[in-house]
């Protein structure tokens, strides 16, 4: 799937064909849209949290393909690298650390699912209605290839707008560069990551409650036969929650 992603998409942006024949841009749009929406729904439907994470990876990968198709190459690559390559790896780490046997597949009750389905469909209807009410925009002239957006984006982040004003807006008004938000986001990221690191590695003083919980769970006397430990833990859920089960 990923291999189809940009290789074919790239070809489509390179040399679009006369409209009468197959419009490759639309074909790949349909392909990636189908993957993205299909796996997004699969995320909702899946029970096992690890499978949900995997479906999410596929869905966001397909969204990156959509960005490439829409001419935003830099954002597509950014999505692949930061979002799928960074954030989702972090998410999968979280899943791995907490995916103990009983927690992996928590079933939602039937009533919730029906309710959520109903609300979802209603919200979807509203959104689709508004999507189609948008006045039909002029599709791209055949054979037009957008010039690369990487340098204009880079320059705009430094505050110098070099891209030509789009959509017939009057060229006179000065469009703002993104120097300030760029600096704010970088500081924000720094603060957030330091905070997250601190939260995850906090030095814990063994609270009395934790001592009592640990005491209630009979520690395996000596390092007994490994298999028996495994079976006994299966029955009583995870060792830590022993006190409660």
């Amino acid at each position, binding site marked *: 799937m990923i291999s189809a992603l940009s290789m074919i998409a790239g070809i489509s942006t390179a040399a679009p064909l006369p409209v009468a024949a197959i419009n490759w841009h*639309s074909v790949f749009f349909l392909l990636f*849209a189908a993957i993205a929406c299909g796996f997004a729904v699969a995320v909702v439907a899946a029970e096992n949290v690890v499978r949900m994470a995997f479906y999410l990876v596929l869905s966001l990968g397909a969204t990156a393909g959509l960005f490439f198709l829409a001419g935003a190459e830099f*954002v597509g690559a950014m999505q692949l690298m930061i979002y799928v390559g960074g954030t989702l790896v972090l998410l999968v780490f*979280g899943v791995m650390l907490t995916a103990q046997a009983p927690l992996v597949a928590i079933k939602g009750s039937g009533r919730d699912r029906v309710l959520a389905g109903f609300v979802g469909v209603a919200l979807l209807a509203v959104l689709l209605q508004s999507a189609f009410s948008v006045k*039909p925009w002029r599709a*791209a002239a055949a054979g037009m290839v*957008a010039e690369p957006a990487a340098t204009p984006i880079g320059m705009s*982040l430094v505050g110098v707008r070099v891209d030509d004003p789009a959509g017939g807006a009057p060229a006179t008004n000065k469009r703002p560069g993104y120097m300030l938000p760029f600096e704010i986001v970088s500081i924000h990221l720094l603060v957030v990551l330091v905070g997250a690191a601190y939260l995850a590695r906090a030095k814990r003083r063994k609270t009395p409650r934790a001592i009592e919980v640990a005491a209630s769970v009979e520690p395996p006397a000596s390092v007994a036969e490994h298999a028996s430990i495994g079976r006994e833990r299966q029955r009583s859920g995870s060792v830590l929650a022993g006190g409660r089960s």
Partner: protein
Amino acid sequence: MNSVVASAVPLFGLFTEPVSVAHYLVVGAILFVSGVACMALKRNALGVLMGIELVLNGANVNFVAFASPYLQGEGSRSLGLDGQVFALFVILLAAAEAAVALAITLNFYNNHATVDVDRADDLKG
């Protein structure tokens, strides 16, 4: 030649018709709705987190759709570069948000040995 298909979108017809911004908006809407449903449905804290990621991506698709050089708005102005830069900032902040959310989830897991959202009922953390 560029008559965009009216409300009903015959998918098989689309192979020869150019894509319009409405199609991108549909994809954005579906991602957004599945994100909201996921947040509502999942009892696992990480499931809720994945719902948030989907919602953010739905928004990103719309941003990029309006900013796409291939789809120039007749009636209203296309976003031009701003749309792409906004999408960039959404991606960056989503990374930060995921980091903090995961730190909180793992800490919750440390203290309560479970990430089941329904178990998080007592305020004393």
